[in-house]
Structure formats: C-alpha cells, structure tokens
C-alpha cells in the first residue's frame, strides 16, 4: 500500500500555488465526464445539462455554486447514485457508465455530512464495511481499520469499539473519511462533508484533509457552498450556474484574480481582497520561535530562559513534542515543575491552515496569537496577530496599487 507511506521526501515548505505537485505521490485516477446530462421526467429544464469536465488524477476539485445549480446531482452521477440520462463517465481509462453500480461504488469513496455513519455499528464495523464486502479476511480488515484510525488522528485502542453517538461531530466526520478510504479507492467524492460542524472543528477537519491528501494523492471531488472552503482545499475550483453550467474551471488564485464573468465575481463576493488571506498559508509566513519547556522539567529554568529571550510566556510541550498549553511566566512561577495540564482552549492551527483560519482561531480563543503545529502535531512556532495584520495591509496596498 504505497499511498500510506509517509512522504518524508517531500520538499520543504511548498508554495501555495502548486502544493509540491511534481513530487507528490498520486494514487488517484483521472475522471472524465463527457456530455453528462440528467433530465428528470416532467421537468422542462435538465438538472444537469451536457457537462463535459476533466479532473486530473490526484487533484482536489471543488464544486461550488448556488443551491439547486446541480452540483450535487453531478457529483452523485459520478458514483451513479443518480443515473445520468445522457453522456458517458470515465474513471481512468474505463467507461463506467454501464458498470454494475454497487461494484463501482466500492471503488469510489463517498463521504456525506456528519459522515453518514451507521449508529448501530461500532466505529471498526463502520470502517470495515467496504473491505468486508470485497471479501478481505478478518485480520486484514482489522489491521486496515487501525491503520485508518491512525491516519485520521484517532487512537485505535480508544475509538475502535465505540459507537458513533459516543463521538463528537468532528470525530464522526473523521471516521466517515476513514470509512470512505477503507478499500483504498482512487477517487473520493465528498458532499458538503463539513457543513454540520462548528467553524473551529471544520477548520481542523480541513487541515486534516489537506494533510491526508498530501500523503495519499487521491482524486477528490468536493461539493461545498462555502467559497472560502473551496479556495482553501481546492487545487482547482469549478464554479457552476443553474443546470450545472460550468462558468469557470480554474485554480483558486486565478478565479479570485480574474473571475470569468460578473456572475463569478458576485459569487466570490465583495471581500475578494480579504479572500486573498485564504490563499496565504500559515506555513508561508515567518513564525516566531517561542521559548519551550517540556512537561515535568524545572519551571524556574524555563522562566529564566523566557526572560532572557524576552518572551512573557512559555509554550509547554508534552513528551511527544506536542504543544499542550502556553502559560504566562507569572503562572509558571507558582509551581516548581512544568505542569502537565492540557489547555483545551489553546488556539492551534496547522502549517496548511490559511491566515483566515489563524485569525478566526485567535478571535474564538480571545488570544493575540496562535500556536502552529507541523508534522505529527509537533510545535512549528507561534504566529502573532500582527503577522495577519501585516498580510492584510500588504494585500490591500497590493489591490490599491
């Protein structure tokens, strides 16, 4: 299973425009829609009218557009949950338009809002459904379940035997993604998967998806009504109008910079200059390197080090190097050693988060900065609100000039 190898050989900070495309490991296949049409009986106008679209292997393509524009219908025609009334659908070199739909769907991951988990089955059973249908033996299914739970950031020992209702919304969504990836399908279809979770959780899930996608390189088709989400996650965005008419199909940068029609400009919204913030990743800006201390070490030494560096706080790391809190020096002097309390409200973003996310996270936590984590949730640095402000200033003056 080559796709699960951590891609250690990846280039250092990839640029926002083309995320390390050439060196990426791609396990996806291209999707080709050729004149796909869906006409419902009794309706004059087709819901999807003659759409031709090519999606490159390993790309994340976002479908955006107003509700009722046919984007979800088009998505569901790719795995034939909705049968097209015309046109052909190709996965890779294969024409799948007339294949047995059940067999086809076992090769296409499908994620819906809230994960669509079956409440009467445990997490492990849910994830193992497709491999079981493909007649994998039990040991292989169990190993795959643990591997996937690990991939989506859930501890297998803790979560394997839980039922969906014993999980938070974000955890359910992670399990939903794990289930979709279970049989290692080349294509992943996601139908507004993060629509039902709170903004902070959604942002973490998006970061996770970016990370997973960097490891796996699936071909992902993702329907959303949130343009910011599309800009953040998409390698390319398709903007649809009624009847699933493709108005523009391009990279986020070019859609923001050069909307094809007034319709797209309207859809992108008036805040397009600020939306450029969505294009800048946390990993693209200079991060501050704070004073750190490991749980259980001497507090006085940490305080002294911070004072020497001119910091008024210390980032506490657990034994695996993950940030768990950032107490002020005054708080630290109260105990002899560094406490192991986990600050549940610690504002954390990943390297692939956007400046927009970072600002959101700061505001939600009422803090003037965020802790940034890199690979395996280890500390990458700290970003101050001033950095975001500077970026806003830059894009504004850029837009003015």
């Amino acid at each position: 299973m080559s796709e699960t190898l951590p891609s250690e050989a990846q280039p250092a900070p990839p640029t926002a425009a083309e995320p390390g495309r050439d060196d990426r490991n791609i396990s996806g296949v291209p999707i080709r829609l050729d004149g796909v049409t869906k006409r419902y009986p009794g309706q004059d106008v087709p819901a999807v009218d003659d759409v031709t679209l090519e999606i490159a292997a390993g790309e994340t393509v976002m479908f955006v557009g107003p509700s009722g524009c046919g984007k979800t219908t088009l998505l569901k025609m790719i795995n034939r949950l909705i049968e097209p009334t015309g046109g052909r659908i190709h996965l890779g070199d294969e024409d799948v338009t007339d294949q047995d739909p059940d067999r086809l769907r076992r090769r296409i991951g499908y994620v819906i809002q809230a994960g669509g988990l079956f409440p009467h089955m445990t997490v492990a059973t849910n994830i193992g459904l497709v491999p079981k249908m493909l007649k994998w033996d039990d040991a292989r299914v169990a190993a795959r379940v643990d591997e996937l739970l690990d991939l989506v950031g859930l501890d297998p020992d803790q979560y394997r035997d839980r039922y969906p209702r014993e999980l938070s919304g974000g955890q359910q969504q992670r399990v939903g993604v794990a289930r979709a990836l279970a049989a290692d399908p080349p294509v992943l279809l996601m139908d507004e998967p993060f629509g039902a979770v709170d903004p902070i959780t959604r942002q973490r899930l998006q970061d996770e998806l970016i990370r997973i996608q960097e490891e796996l390189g699936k071909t992902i088709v993702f329907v959303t009504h949130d343009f910011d989400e599309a800009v953040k996650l998409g390698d390319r965005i398709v903007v649809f109008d009624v009847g699933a008419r493709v108005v523009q199909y391009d990279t986020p940068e070019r859609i923001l910079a050069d909307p094809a029609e007034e319709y797209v400009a309207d859809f992108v919204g008036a805040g397009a200059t600020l939306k450029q913030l969505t294009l800048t990743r946390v990993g693209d800006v200079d991060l501050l390197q704070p004073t750190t201390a490991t749980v259980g070490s001497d507090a006085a030494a940490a305080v002294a080090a911070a004072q020497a560096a001119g910091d008024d706080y210390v980032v506490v790391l657990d034994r695996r190097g993950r940030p768990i809190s950032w107490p002020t020096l005054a708080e630290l002097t109260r105990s002899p050693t560094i406490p192991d309390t986990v600050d549940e409200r610690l504002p954390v973003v990943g390297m692939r988060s956007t400046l927009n996310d970072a600002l959101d996270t700061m505001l939600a936590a009422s803090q003037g900065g965020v802790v940034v984590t890199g690979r395996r949730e280890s500390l990458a640095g700290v970003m101050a609100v001033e950095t975001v402000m500077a970026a806003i200033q830059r894009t504004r003056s850029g837009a003015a000039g």
Partner: protein
Amino acid sequence: MWDYVVERRGLIAFQAFQHVSLVVQCVLLGSLLAVALAVLVYRNPTATSAANGFSAVGLTVPSFALLGILLAPFGFGITPAVIAITFYAALPVLRNAVVGLAGVDRSLVESARGIGMSRVRTLLRVELPLAWPVILAGIRVSTQMVMGIAAIAAYVLGPGLGGFIFSGLSRLGGANALNSTLTGTIAIVLLALVLDLLLVLVGRLTTPRGIRV
C-alpha cells in the same frame, strides 16, 4: 379455588403450554409475514397508507366473528385458530414495521448505497436493524393482544386455556363453573406478563448498544 387448581394441575399445565405454544408460533409467523409485507410497501406512499388502513380496519374485526367465518371452510380444530391468531398478530407488527422502516434516516440509506451496498444488503444490514426496536415494540403489543384472542379459539375447539373459560361460562352457576373460568383467565394474564418480560429481555439482547435508548 386452590383445591380446584391443585386437582387439575396436570391439565392446566398442559393447556397453558398449548396456549403459549400456539401464541408464540402464531406471533412468529405473523411477524414474519408482517415484516415481509412492510418491506414491500414502505417505499411507496400509496401502498403504505393501504397497509396502515388494512391494519387499522383489521383490528376492528371482532375475533369471535372471524373465527365463526373461518369455521365454514376449515371446520373445527387447529386450522381456523391458527389463521385467526396469525391474522391478529400480524396487524400491530405490520403497522410498526412500516413506521420503523420509513423512520430510518434517508441519508443513512443513501450512505449505504453510496459505499456499494446492494438494495438487499442495505435492507438487511442497515434498515431492518435500525427499525428493529420499533418492530419489536409491535411484537410486544401483538403478543399481549393475541394471548386474549387465543382464549376465544377454544370456541372452534382450538387448543389452550380458553377451554377452561368456555366450559365455565357454559355451566355458569354449576359446580366449579366460576373456578374454571377464573383459572383460565388468571393463567392467561400471568402467562402474558411472563411473555412480555421475555420479550423485554429479547429486546435488550438484540438491540445494539449504539441505538439503545
């Protein structure tokens, strides 16, 4: 009355066994038929309301009358009793099975189809398990109801505790007539309670932890 019961304990025990056996078998058969019918109709609104109407009207048919009507083609004995009891047993289950299946979240069904489960597999692995608590509630109602109806089966000379009730009623005023009727009635009530407890236990054992309330 105590002496009456002790003297006839063998017969009472035998008839009680016959009664329970008749009820359990008819409820099983009725539930299977009802769930099968529900599976056929629940996705079609017209058929669903027809099934609901059928189960509502069916329950208003007096059991005495139905047994009487069945006498003509089938004569006295076990056959008309089984047909009538199965008929009544199926009705509450039919209604609950339709409600239960229709109540399964459509997005879960779509999710099942979306990951490649066939129609039949979706029904067996997702829809029926999720509807099961509602179906089982219907089976409990129908078991209670049919315990009483099975007593009337004695009218067509079917097996069970109804014999005590009918023989008592036919000799009302005579020796042990009241004892006989009371014995039959009380035994039926007690057995009904026991069966209900068993069904609660079955519910506990067969409802997955993830959907237990």
